[in-house]
């Protein structure tokens, strides 16, 4: 690829915030699903927390996206083709796909949110009871899996969206989708850990920490892949002030990794690790979004 | 232009000197590119015409040229001189043409000479030449014999010149010319112009091929040549080269001035400048008591029995017809057709002298009509002080100008300026119909585009109304010599509101007996039975109607351009007599056959017994092979082109003189470095006294400056056009990279440029398009100053400085050409500093 002669789309803070939320929301749902499917009764609480996180965070996404539009009142043009008629759906346009994915994922996320509210005993209402028992059934498992796939997509596609352009950095690599997914999952794990700290489910915590460890390793591998694929535009992401963000990214990955291997330390630093992870998740997206447009 | 825009496509080689057509004439420039793109054109084997651009700056024109020649401002006399010398030394001139179509064989008086930079007859006290020695040896016997045979018509004098057809006599123009130019060796050219010898010889190599009959070259110039103290000689130099190469009168050839405003050609034809009357008739001079005196002293003498001397012979008819147009019935044979009504200026009354007089307190008021004196310069501060020295100033303009606002310009104290300024809103030309005459002499009638805006009135209505009121005052109060005012004809349907159509008819002229409009100036008479407001336009609006409105053009090229030479005879109307190429008789040989059959101008058709092609510059049915046929150049006294001429004040041959402000002494004759006859104004008082005191020297002002235009602006008026201001928003000076590096200046810095007269404070544009030259062994930098900004318009309004010190002409010297008095805008000295 080498040289680019483009204008940046000027995607700034709204988009950064959106990418972060999409990662957390999608990641949490996937996490919750895995806890439910692979884990045991003791993990149920953590699973509930994951779903309780996913939906509210997801709700923020369309708001951020709409605020970023030049014509917010036309956000619905993403779904309805006002000139050609019918719906707009462009499988090869991640933004079009993403719009639909957000909508549909919203349904899954909402249902699991409701069910979790009921199961957690926060709210007890006929309607909720019904949903709860539905998701408890076999159909529920399939429902969960499908939802998780959407979750994975929502967490990942933002990376592909950047790549499907002609901007420097973004379009020079194919690693962004995976990278955002991995960091999204690790971010989600961090959120659940933070939220479940009170509940003292030591075993689940250990499981989450272990999972996060793998996610971080995955993320580090993909960061290396990302940088490796940049070629000519590598300097753009590594130059000047951006280094500071990269330092935060490293702190958000290596430090937790180190702590994770020392459960002893981990107990003291129960707060530190997940916070660092979340900062890392944010910094990673920031450096990729901003440096390319600089 | 001797030729016209479209004709440039017919050429093999284009020399551009002192012009930047890609930027100043972008539409006309398409024809340069057409020539370049045409594989049938070009020197040697063809493959497209070549463009050689000689300019101190590498411009958007240079970018399109095949060869860019960096020349020092004001030195083209040496450049052309070198080429002339090369052509003469190597016998590359068009021999047959030079012998028969120029005055090369004429013998010059023995008194004529040139030593130490001065021609014979110089009077240092008055800085003038007595030109009596710059004359032909007259064969008095032959002259008398001729007069006996043909009684002299209309007061024109016969003075048959002696000739030597072999060109060997040392007193022939040819030998004198060879001797004069022998000094312009490639080495000398390089010392003066800064053009490397090897590059100059590459240019000469190409130009040298253009003397072949099957090749033709055009020279294109504009104010980069005229705006020098040697302006006229710069242009003559090119003309001499073209005569030697036999390129005058030929399609694809000629000496072509790209004119200025869309109608500046029309302005000149109608006597915008003080020393002429309409149609280039001379302004009467003091001492010319009778019409006969005037004609005999103004009309060219007949120097050869076969010279028609058309202008000279008919001078009286043209003058009388003009007087009839102006004074009608009051112009009678008994009062010499009111010849006395015409003023006889005693001394230089050129543009600059107006302000010189004002500074001397000799002027009460001034009308500025469509002209922004303050911006135009030269030496704007001097001009503004002159305006402040008036009782009243009337600015007739559609828009505010630096002249209408000078009294409240940034830094000025309105209370201290007593001049009463009247702003008269006129219509802009887009709010008028009327004619535009382009550089190619095409008079093209245009429609009114929009109706007059606001209170705007047409200029001619304002002037007509004003005249009516002045006349009324004379009727009431009388006054000294009221006759010229009382007698002036205003024969329009509404004398207060003449239409341009009526004026166009008046210009064309009438047969006063029948009242019909004339079809040709050949019909004009000196007995008072015809009128013509401008004889060269007679025929443009004949009885059949306004030919300037014709529009038969490219919609059907075959039908509308039958010869394929681009004449388009039914597109508008071209003076004289719809002729598209002047002197076109010279495009054919003695027998009337074109020098280059593939590019005919006119051709003698022996069968039809008439000339075919362009409108011939010759009697349409005169057989060139008859022993009594006229010589080719029918207008002048010689009947041939002038290589030697006494029609100019500063030398019969062009000579290189340094600009008034120059970094070097003249390498040819340091003793006479600058023009000995350039007019030096004596000015008023204080800082605006004698101009000689305002010239700077190279030790204080080491850099040459030249001023010029940019595509994006039209002088000062486009300061009112936001979209154009957007393209070139702020004033700047262009500085060569090397000089900028020395001064630590980078593009965008604010810089101050000073001359000995004033300063500009603008932004820097550092460029490699300007570079130093080696002049007489000395490294010299040139900086460029675009002219377009001032304290009026959107750029000034948008700037904190409000346009203070934005006038390029604050820098320029108040001195001009010895003949045309055109200011030396193009070469002066400055210093430059970072602010």
């Amino acid at each position, binding site marked *: 690829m080498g040289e680019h002669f483009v204008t940046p*789309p000027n995607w700034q803070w709204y988009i950064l915030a959106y990418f972060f939320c999409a990662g957390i929301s999608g990641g949490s749902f996937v996490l919750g699903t895995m806890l439910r499917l692979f884990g045991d009764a003791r993990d149920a609480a953590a699973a509930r927390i994951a779903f309780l996180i996913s939906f509210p965070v997801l709700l923020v996404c369309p708001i951020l996206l709409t605020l970023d539009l030049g014509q917010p009142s036309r956000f619905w043009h993403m779904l309805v083709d006002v000139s050609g008629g019918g719906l707009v759906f462009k499988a090869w346009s991640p933004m079009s796909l993403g719009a639909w994915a957000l909508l549909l994922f919203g349904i899954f996320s909402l249902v699991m949110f409701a069910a979790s509210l009921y199961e957690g005993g926060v709210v007890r209402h006929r309607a909720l009871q019904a949903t709860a028992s539905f998701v408890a059934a076999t159909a529920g498992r399939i429902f969960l899996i499908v939802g998780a796939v959407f979750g994975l997509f929502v967490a990942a596609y933002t990376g592909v969206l950047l790549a499907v352009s002609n901007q420097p950095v973004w379009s020079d690599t194919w690693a962004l989708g995976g990278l955002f997914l991995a960091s999204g999952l690790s971010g989600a794990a961090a959120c659940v850990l933070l939220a479940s700290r009170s509940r003292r489910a030591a075993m689940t915590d250990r499981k989450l920490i272990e999972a996060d460890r793998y996610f971080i390793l995955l993320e580090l591998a993909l960061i290396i892949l990302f940088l490796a694929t940049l070629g000519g535009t590598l300097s753009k992401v590594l130059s000047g002030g951006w280094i500071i963000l990269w330092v935060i990214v490293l702190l958000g990955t290596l430090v937790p990794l180190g702590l994770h291997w020392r459960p002893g330390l981990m107990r003291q630093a129960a707060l530190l690790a997940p916070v660092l992870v979340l900062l890392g998740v944010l910094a990673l997206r920031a450096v990729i979004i901003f440096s390319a447009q600089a | 232009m001797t030729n016209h825009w479209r004709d440039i496509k017919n050429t093999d080689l284009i020399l551009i000197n002192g012009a930047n057509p890609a930027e100043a004439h972008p539409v006309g420039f398409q024809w340069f590119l057409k020539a370049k793109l045409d594989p049938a054109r070009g020197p040697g084997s063809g493959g497209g015409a070549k463009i050689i651009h000689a300019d101190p700056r590498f411009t958007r024109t240079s970018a399109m040229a095949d060869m860019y020649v960096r020349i020092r401002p004001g030195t083209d006399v040496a450049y052309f001189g070198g080429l002339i010398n090369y052509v003469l030394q190597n016998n590359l001139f068009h021999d047959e043409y030079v012998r028969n179509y120029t005055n090369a064989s004429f013998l010059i008086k023995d008194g004529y000479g040139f030593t130490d930079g001065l021609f014979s007859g110089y009077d240092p006290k008055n800085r003038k030449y007595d030109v009596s020695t710059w004359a032909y040896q007259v064969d008095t016997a032959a002259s008398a014999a001729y007069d006996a045979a043909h009684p002299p018509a209309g007061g024109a004098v016969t003075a048959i010149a002696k000739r030597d057809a072999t060109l060997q006599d040392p007193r022939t123009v040819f030998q004198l010319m060879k001797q004069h130019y022998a000094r312009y060796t490639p080495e000398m050219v390089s010392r003066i112009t800064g053009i490397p010898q090897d590059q100059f010889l590459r240019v000469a190599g190409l130009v040298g091929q253009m003397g072949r009959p099957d090749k033709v070259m055009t020279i294109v110039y504009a104010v980069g040549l005229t705006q020098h103290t040697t302006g006229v000689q710069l242009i003559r130099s090119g003309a001499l080269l073209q005569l030697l190469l036999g390129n005058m009168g030929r399609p694809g050839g000629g000496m072509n001035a790209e004119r200025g405003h869309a109608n500046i050609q029309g302005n000149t034809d109608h006597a915008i400048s003080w020393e002429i009357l309409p149609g280039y008739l001379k302004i009467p001079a003091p001492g010319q008591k009778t019409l006969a005196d005037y004609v005999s002293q103004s009309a060219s003498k007949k120097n050869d029995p076969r010279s028609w001397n058309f202008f000279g012979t008919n001078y009286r008819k043209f003058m009388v017809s003009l007087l009839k147009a102006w004074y009608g019935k009051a112009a009678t044979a008994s009062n010499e057709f009111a010849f006395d009504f015409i003023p006889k200026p005693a001394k230089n009354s050129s543009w600059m002298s107006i302000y010189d007089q004002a500074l001397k307190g000799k002027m009460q008021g001034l009308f500025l009509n469509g002209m922004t004196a303050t911006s135009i310069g030269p030496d704007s501060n001097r001009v503004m002080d002159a305006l402040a020295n008036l009782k009243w100033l009337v600015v007739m303009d559609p828009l505010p100008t630096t002249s209408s606002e000078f009294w409240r310009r940034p830094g000025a104290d309105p209370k201290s300026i007593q001049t009463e300024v009247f702003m008269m809103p006129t219509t802009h030309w887009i709010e008028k119909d009327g004619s535009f005459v382009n550089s190619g002499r095409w008079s093209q009638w245009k429609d009114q585009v929009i109706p007059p805006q606001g209170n705007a009135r047409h200029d001619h209505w304002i002037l007509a109304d004003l005249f009516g009121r002045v006349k009324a005052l004379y009727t009431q109060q009388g006054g000294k010599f009221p006759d010229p005012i009382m007698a002036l004809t205003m024969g329009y349907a509404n004398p207060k509101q003449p239409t341009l159509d009526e004026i166009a008819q008046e210009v064309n002229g009438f047969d006063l007996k029948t009242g019909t409009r004339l079809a040709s100036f050949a019909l004009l008479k000196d007995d008072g039975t015809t009128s013509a407001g401008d004889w060269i336009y007679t025929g443009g609006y004949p009885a059949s109607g306004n030919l300037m409105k014709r529009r038969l053009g490219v919609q059907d090229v075959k039908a509308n351009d039958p010869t394929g030479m681009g004449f388009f005879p039914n597109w508008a109307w071209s003076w004289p007599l719809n002729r598209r190429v002047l002197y076109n008789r010279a495009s054919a040989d003695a027998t009337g056959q074109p020098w280059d059959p593939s590019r005919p101008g006119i051709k003698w058709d022996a069968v039809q017994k008439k000339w075919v092609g362009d409108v011939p510059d010759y009697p349409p049915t005169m057989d060139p092979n008859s022993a009594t046929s006229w010589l080719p150049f029918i207008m002048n006294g010689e009947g041939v082109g002038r290589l030697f001429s006494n029609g100019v004040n500063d030398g019969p041959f062009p000579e290189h003189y340094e600009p008034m402000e120059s970094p070097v002494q003249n390498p040819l004759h340091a003793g006479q470095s600058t023009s000995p006859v350039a007019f030096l104004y004596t000015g008023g008082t204080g800082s605006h006294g004698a101009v000689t005191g305002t010239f700077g020297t190279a030790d204080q002002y080491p850099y040459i400056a030249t001023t010029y235009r940019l595509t994006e602006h039209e002088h000062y008026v486009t300061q009112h056009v936001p979209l154009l201001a957007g393209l070139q928003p702020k004033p700047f000076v262009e500085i060569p990279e090397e000089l900028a590096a020395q001064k630590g200046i980078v593009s965008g810095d604010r810089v101050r440029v000073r001359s000995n007269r004033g300063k500009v404070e603008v932004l820097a544009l550092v460029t490699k398009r300007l570079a130093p030259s080696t002049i007489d062994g000395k490294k010299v930098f040139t900086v460029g100053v675009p002219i377009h900004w001032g304290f009026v318009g959107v750029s000034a309004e948008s700037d904190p400085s409000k346009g203070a010190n934005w006038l390029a002409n604050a820098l320029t010297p108040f001195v001009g050409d010895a003949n045309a008095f055109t200011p030396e805008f193009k070469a002066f000295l400055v210093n430059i500093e970072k602010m």
Partner: protein
Amino acid sequence: MAQTVGFLTDTTLCIGCKACEVACKEWNGLPNNPLDFKGSYDNTGQLDHANWRHVRFLETSTSNPDKPIAWSMMSDVCKHCANASCLEVCPTNAIVRTEFDTVFIQQDVCNGCRDCIAACPYGVIGFNQQSGTAQKCTFCYDRLQNNLMPACATACPTQSIKFGDLATMRQAAAERVQTLQSQGVSQAQVYGDTEYGGLHAMFILTDKPEAYGLPSQASAVLPGRNNIPGYLTAAVTAVLAGLAGLIAFRRRGEQPAAATPPPAATTGGR
């Protein structure tokens, strides 16, 4: 179906007069540029929402003593790509292909997401803060619909901008390059014959495309190219993450057997 139109912009005939820029602004009522000096003859700077033609000035030194500077001017414009990156990504179908085979942004549909700006490989599209939409050259859609030449081509004094039937333009381009090469301009080349399935605004260049701010043949690629690899990596990551979950959350030795979540009654009870 109306004719397929095209531009051929010939840098060897461009004199940098900017008549095209002004004509475009006049016809399309585009806002003026700020009155700031940019330090060169180019005070327009770039193509954007307010500049749909932009004349680039490219200045380089040469070793030719008779032409020490190569100063080439190029009137840049939307390329109206046959395979248009902008049109590919636009999520609202605001960007459409017209009956003249040009690429047009419907201002009443665009919602200002700016994905097209990210996509255009030529940096053509600009975002208009006032309208909140993306804007670029319309190929004078309104003029074409009324059988008028585009304003820029009409104004060009040197026919550096040629307008006409696309096929004719392609042929003219080929011929022009031949002539130039026969006159010794070895670098003369057409840009836009093959890029993006053939551009509807082609250029005659005398140097490599990069010198004019145009991506080379090799790097003229569509955004869509990154879809498959992008999603694939994501999928692989997803699978690995799944495995990670499987390992991390696997049931450890202790009770209870099944992880069936306890019925609501047993858990939530007081």
